């Protein structure tokens, strides 16, 4: 298992390099610079500013020095928030986004898997169509529609839950997690239904039934392990997506996360911020993909042995 992880990480290095160079070129080709403003700025002041952030050097020199900094783990200063470094900003935004992603994934898993399993127990019956069409609703409902609806109903009319914020007022984490989670819950429901149906048609389920085990233990002990392998494979990219894609939910619910940084940085041409965030997300995606692949192998005893794991 270790060997598998090692060579996957080795492959990650060229990938990251390509990601950094592509973003660097794209960012520097965008029209408008970080210091253009609506108020007239005398040219010499702009020159002085660019000198301070050594933007006046030739592009390749900036690229080399930037790579040097990145290797040392320093993503450079942010242009927009003067005085703050990108590391600091990411560190400030990460806890909220990570926690939101975790809760959303939890919501998705609990709702998704239960819907999928319930649907798989009696295929093509009401017990199958109901959860699946509910899952369908989850896929169709964009988060920027579901969020405001929830806020309107629970936040303002019923006043059960706070309308926004993260962590200051108790209960302000529930609605954002549900909003972000439903979309993924729908996909997980479909995946787990497919996985469970596949496993339930296997011979060893018939053996389990012939042994006189209760339907419940057949589903949860025997069928669930095999059935959820496709879900595990989906978790990796999904979790990375959650970390990156929560911009909408963070805007609606006023959550101090990473999502808003990204789009603002793009709008403000905050080069170091864009690059910093891109590298951060790329590493996350690679890490989570590797994690979910390893988990999928680890869950299947046969594959685990082939990968030279310790048993």
């Amino acid at each position, binding site marked *: 298992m270790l060997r598998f992880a090692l060579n996957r990480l080795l*492959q*990650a290095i060229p*990938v*990251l390099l*390509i*990601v950094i160079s*592509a*973003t660097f070129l*794209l*960012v520097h*080709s*965008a*029209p408008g610079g970080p210091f253009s403003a609506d108020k007239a700025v005398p040219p010499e002041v702009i020159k002085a500013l660019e000198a301070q952030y050594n933007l006046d050097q030739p592009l390749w020199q900036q690229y080399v020095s930037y790579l040097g900094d990145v290797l040392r783990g320093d993503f450079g200063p942010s242009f927009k928030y003067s005085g703050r470094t990108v590391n600091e900003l990411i560190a400030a935004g990460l806890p909220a986004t990570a926690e939101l992603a975790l809760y959303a994934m939890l919501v998705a898993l609990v709702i998704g898997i239960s819907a999928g399993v319930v649907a798989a127990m009696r295929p093509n019956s009401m017990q199958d169509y109901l959860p*699946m*069409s509910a899952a*369908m*609703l989850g*896929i*169709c*409902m*964009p988060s*920027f*529609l579901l969020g*405001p*609806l929830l806020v*309107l109903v629970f936040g303002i009319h019923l006043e059960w839950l706070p309308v926004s914020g993260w962590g200051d007022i108790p209960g302000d984490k529930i609605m954002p997690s549900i909003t972000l989670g439903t979309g993924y819950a729908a996909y997980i429901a479909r995946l787990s239904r497919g996985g469970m149906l596949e496993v339930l048609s296997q011979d060893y389920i018939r053996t389990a039934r012939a042994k006189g085990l209760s339907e419940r233990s057949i589903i949860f002990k025997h069928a669930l392990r095999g059935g959820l392998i496709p879900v595990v494979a989906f978790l990796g*990219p999904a979790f990375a997506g959650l970390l*990156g*894609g929560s*911009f*909408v939910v963070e805007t609606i619910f006023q959550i101090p996360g990473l999502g808003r940084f*990204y*789009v603002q940085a*793009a*709008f403000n041409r905050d080069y170091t911020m*864009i690059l910093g*965030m*891109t590298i951060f*997300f*790329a590493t996350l*995606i*690679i890490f989570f*993909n590797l994690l979910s692949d390893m988990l999928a192998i680890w869950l299947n005893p046969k594959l685990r042995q082939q990968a030279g794991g310790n048993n």
Partner: protein
Amino acid sequence: MVADNLQQQEECGTSLWQDAWVKLSKNYLALFGLGILCLLTVVSLLTPWIAPYGYEEQNLLLGATGPSLDHWLGTDIFGRDMLTRIMYGGRVSLTVGFIATAVALLIGVLWGAIAGFVGGRTDAVMMRIVDIMYALPFMIFIVLLMVVFGRNILLLFLAIGAVEWLTMARIVRSQVMALRKQEFVEAAHSLGLSEWTIIRRHIIPNTLGPVIVYTTLTIPSVMLLEAFLSFLGLGIQPPQSSWGLLINYGVETMEEYPWLLIFPGIALSLTLFALNFLGDGLRDALDPRTAKD
């Protein structure tokens, strides 16, 4: 067995597609989905001729009014007829959906088939490329592309298509890897057929089942991605509109003018429901296993 009457029906025989169609026609949900889709496509194609008002026609005095006789679905804050806006929005959303999915389908299937069939080193390289593309935070690139090159629809299609083909390639590859071990592929090898003929005649037709099902799932996610980009202000630009944009504006004035949100919302979810039911129906119809009973 009465041999002679069989002679006349020499050419009869249900092809898998006819077989699939027979099974599909028994699945009412899938039919309902297909019906809705045809209706929407026809309406979108004929929009310029059947739309009650010009999509640009403003009536500032009117402002946002609820559904009324001359404006069945009400008007937006500029007094433009919502029914017309939804029709034109449908045109844009459906085109985004179909073209981006076509891009994803084309690249994905070819890439997956070659990687899956050839195997060995090329497969490893091709799959690493897919991993690289997966690792690129595509949301970031789409935002940058839109910001850098401005928002033209073509770029939007290509960008969205480039996000979706990855999963398609992976699905097709796993499908092809399974098929490659089947004996009929080995038999084709033993006949001495060239690799390309085997891929074209034996592999790709057998992957169409799951591929079709996945396409009917890609279209909704592509439409939602376009809606998300509109939310960021990077999707379709006025005066054109798409369902995503209409819902986006509708959400902002949800309490004051609810119909601005409800009708485009219904249109989008109806299409997505139809696509998903059709997708499920197709999957069951094309699954050889169900063909047996």
